[in-house]
């Protein structure tokens, strides 16, 4: 079962034109810097935003459905112990202020494409359309492939954002229906990759090579999130650029690390793995110049 954790309209920075992004929930990687931690787990889960909670004196409804000891109200506002969560999702259903929320909703392919198609007037100028992101969309082949197929049938331009870690067969099939692919290559160093994302990069690099040979005409936007302490050196970036050199229809772009996702970790009752690390802006701009070799 695949779940959608967000549908984002008026997206301007992920692909051509004005786009609508469908985010699928569940990812095989655990990148330390991930800004969408709610995208990682397959299946539904509860998140809790304390600033939306109106407190026990006004409400306290959640206490009636949560397991014993799962919630306390030390300063009137709810404090949750996520370890005690039974995943029944009842608390989110009765929370009036939506401080408690279910991450991940079920949709049929038809429902999704109908929602996306409502924005089609905006796609007619500048080549906008559907972007499927995640999580890792390629691990949701059951919904991704029919979604892309239906989009093509309705003449909606398509793109995916992928980390590349998936069965090649799914990537191969998806690419058949894609107008653009945004492919993350985080590092060509296998060890480091494993340490910071939980998986080695073999599958990713192989998939990318194979994609280039099977779909030379497909526009590929390769992106590297520049992460302090992981790949923010000239050597890291040069190596990736080197790997990309002479491959067909590849455009390379660096994305700067940010910590906007920090609050979401708290909402899910998790620690933010990056702490207070910051990206040096001057350094980032220097690194950007290295990507010019592909131009």
């Amino acid at each position: 079962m695949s779940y959608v954790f967000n549908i984002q309209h008026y997206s301007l920075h992920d692909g051509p034109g004005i786009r609508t992004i469908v985010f699928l929930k569940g990812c095989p990687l655990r990148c330390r810097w991930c800004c969408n931690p709610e995208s990682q787990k397959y299946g539904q889960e509860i998140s809790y935003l304390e600033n939306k909670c109106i407190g026990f004196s006004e409400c306290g409804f959640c206490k009636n459905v949560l397991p014993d000891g799962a919630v306390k109200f030390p300063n009137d506002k709810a404090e949750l112990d996520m370890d005690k969560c039974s995943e029944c999702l009842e608390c989110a259903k009765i929370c009036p202020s939506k401080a408690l929320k279910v991450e991940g909703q079920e949709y049929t392919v038809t429902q999704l494409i109908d929602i996306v198609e409502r924005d089609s007037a905006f796609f007619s100028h500048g080549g906008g359309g559907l972007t499927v992101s995640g999580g890792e969309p390629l691990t949701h082949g059951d919904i991704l492939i029919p979604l892309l197929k239906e989009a093509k049938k309705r003449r909606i331009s398509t793109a995916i954002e992928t980390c590349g870690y998936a069965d090649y067969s799914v990537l191969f099939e998806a690419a058949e229906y894609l107008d653009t692919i945004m492919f993350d290559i985080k590092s060509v160093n296998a060890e480091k990759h494993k340490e910071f994302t939980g998986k080695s990069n073999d599958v990713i690099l192989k998939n990318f090579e194979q994609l280039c040979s099977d779909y030379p005409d497909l526009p590929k936007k390769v992106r590297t999130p520049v992460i302090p302490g992981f790949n923010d050196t000239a050597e890291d970036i040069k190596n990736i650029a080197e790997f990309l050199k002479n491959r067909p229809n590849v455009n390379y772009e660096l994305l700067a690390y940010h910590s906007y996702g920090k609050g979401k970790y708290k909402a899910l009752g998790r620690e933010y793995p990056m702490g207070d690390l910051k990206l040096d802006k001057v350094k980032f701009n220097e690194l950007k110049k290295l990507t010019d070799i592909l131009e």
Partner: protein
Amino acid sequence: MSVKVLSPQEIRIYDEIENKVSQKGKNRAYEILQKIRGAKPQIDIERGLYFTQSFKETVGQPLNLRWAKALYHYAKNATVYIDENQLLVGRSGKPGRYGILYPELDGNIFKEAMVKLPTRENSPFDISDEDARTVIEEIAPFWVGKTFHENFAASLTKETTKLTYNSDKELTSRYIVNETASFRSSIQWVHDYEIVLEKGFKGIKEEALEKLSQLDEYSPIDYTEKRPFLEATIITCNAIILWANRHADLAEELAEKESDPIRKAELEKIAETCRYVPENPPRTFYEAMQSQWFTQMFSRVEQKTGTIISNGRMDQYLYPFYKKDIENGIITDDEVQELFECMWVAMAQFIDLYLSDTGGAFNEGYAHWEAVTIGGQTKEGLDATNELTYILLKSKREFPLNYPDLAARIHTRSPKRYLYEVAETIKAGEGFPKLINDEDVIPLLLSKGANFEEAYDYSVSGCAECRMPNRDTYTSPNAYINFAAALEMVVYNGHMLKYGDELLGLETGEFTEFKSFDELLDAFLKQQKNFLKHAFIQQREIIRLRAEHFASPLGSALHKLCREQYIDIHQPKIEGGIDLGYFEYMGFATVIDSLAAIKKTVFEDKVLTLAQIKEALEHNFHGYEAIRQLLLNSPSYGNDDPYTDEIGKLLDKEAQDFTRKYSKELGVHMDLRLVPFTSHVPFGKVVSATPNGRFANTPLSDGSSASQGADISGPTAVLLSNYATKNFNYNEHAGRLINVKLSPACVKGEEGTEKLVQFIETWRDLKLWHIQFNVLNTETMRAAQKNPEAYRNLLVRIAGYSAYFTELTKDLQDDLISRTEHEAV
């Protein structure tokens, strides 16, 4: 993810705070602006005084003749001014920002207003003690019992009155079915300036003289109707020519004394120009500008039209003069721009003075809308952009002033360069231009009976109205109807908490007893219909009384149909005219969201009862926050959600059905409009808590925008909800105003411009009437609240216009901040 970036206007403000003022003081208009900025506007009493003096002398004469004589008396006696360094002359009040008096409208409240005005919260004005005494002793007494305001109020039945006025002596508004006819004699208007440029007032006068000589002196119609019309035309032409010549005299006098040779030459040129125009057709671009300016200034003296007279299609009617001067090498683009800026800075000094609190609250920040229209199509239906279009846009980007309101017409063949320059201008962050969609407006005008040539040539007038200067006729000021109050009357069975036991609306039944959503909806529609009924009753009286209280010899002389029929433009029946009136639907999203929240929580999810909701509303949600949250988190308009949008479409349709049926009886179009100026704030103040989770006395939703902060699905969804709530098969509707606030990050760089253009193109395809953008950070606005001195020049888009943020009330500032700031992610 976006990173905060600043809009150019924010950069300029920060630079000023840090004393890094740019060296852009190149132009004279900027220097004039620096002198007038910040000072509280003054009331100038001369217009009120000279009109009163003249009216005392002309009792018993035809009204248009009285008006023409009053204009002449003004032209002969009023002080004339030539501002230091200005190139264009003609003002109707003291140096600095000023407002003038129209006692024929609401002279009955002048006495009280003189005391209140300097200290009122919305748009205060200063007046000297001596002038205040003149107003109270010489002007006001003459008008007691004669003003439109009093006579209109007296004409209403008890039922209509209680929805219109409080029972005080000043007839203050109840903000339920609110009339706006007492603070303006007609709604937004734009003159046919082309005829002034083509014939001059001499030409118009000669035609009138010719017709006068041909009258049949034994014909009762010729004698009682045509003669006064023609005489009024002649006197009015003489008046404006006299007024211009008095400026020429003054310029000559000043030139004589002037020691600076450059200024001396300018003054001599001013003198020569004022001797020649507007009497004669202008020979140059400069003369054309001066001629237009005299015309619109004199029109302001003649009468208070709603939101001040508009400028029309300046890039069209001025183009022949521009082209000729450029070809002859007598003017440069920079000089053209300087002349425009001289006009903008002159415009900024004339404030639309509202003496009633109602008027002031409608137009916060001293709002006035002398819209300048650019782009669009020619009379032949071809794209109309030209060099002047781009100069006007450039002037808007470079000159930091909120006047005039610039309106850019957009159509399917608008050139890319035009769309990009429009987008770049919007990005400059001052809310200009607003966009008006030919693809919505033109078919509508055609369906109202215009021919193609007229429809293609429409001008934007005021905040979002469109006028065909020789085909439309003056339209009676209209009702602003508070439908959130109608909703409150459903909850309290015809009552409102603010007005206690007084039964105001219909008794539609006990709120807690409704058995289905349809029953409840039906009750609301009955209240809606009842409000419309009283608005239309008001309108009937306004139309009748307007003809008895106002005449507009200048406006009529510039209107083809009036000249042909010898009829004043204030008369209700002008053969061949199209009377495009409207009523304002206040609180559109507030009502939709409230109905949707009840439907969802009570009748579908069954998590609340009507009794619980009513109890929570009675307590303004204090102690009922959980209930408020459930309501607030129900589906909301502005998110492209059919759940709410179907309700919106029904409300729109029901209102249009009413007007389709009853407008005919009034002989005018009374179209549904969603353009509230700033009035959603005062209207909200009378409405208690509403079932969309809105607290008592807070602003209603604004125009066709979503409830404050409720549009959480981005600006595309705002447009789509607008589209989905429009009944395209009806033509009983007027403008809909859409505000979209974008952070500078959304539109950053060349890519940002490109995507803004794509957004605009889609808006055009959706056939939506109007859109305007605010590009700035809420942080900037919060900082401006804390440190208003340093942010005096922060411009924000409010309704059809931009205003200085720090001149707005705290409530409106808060409202602006709480409108969702759309961040692209």
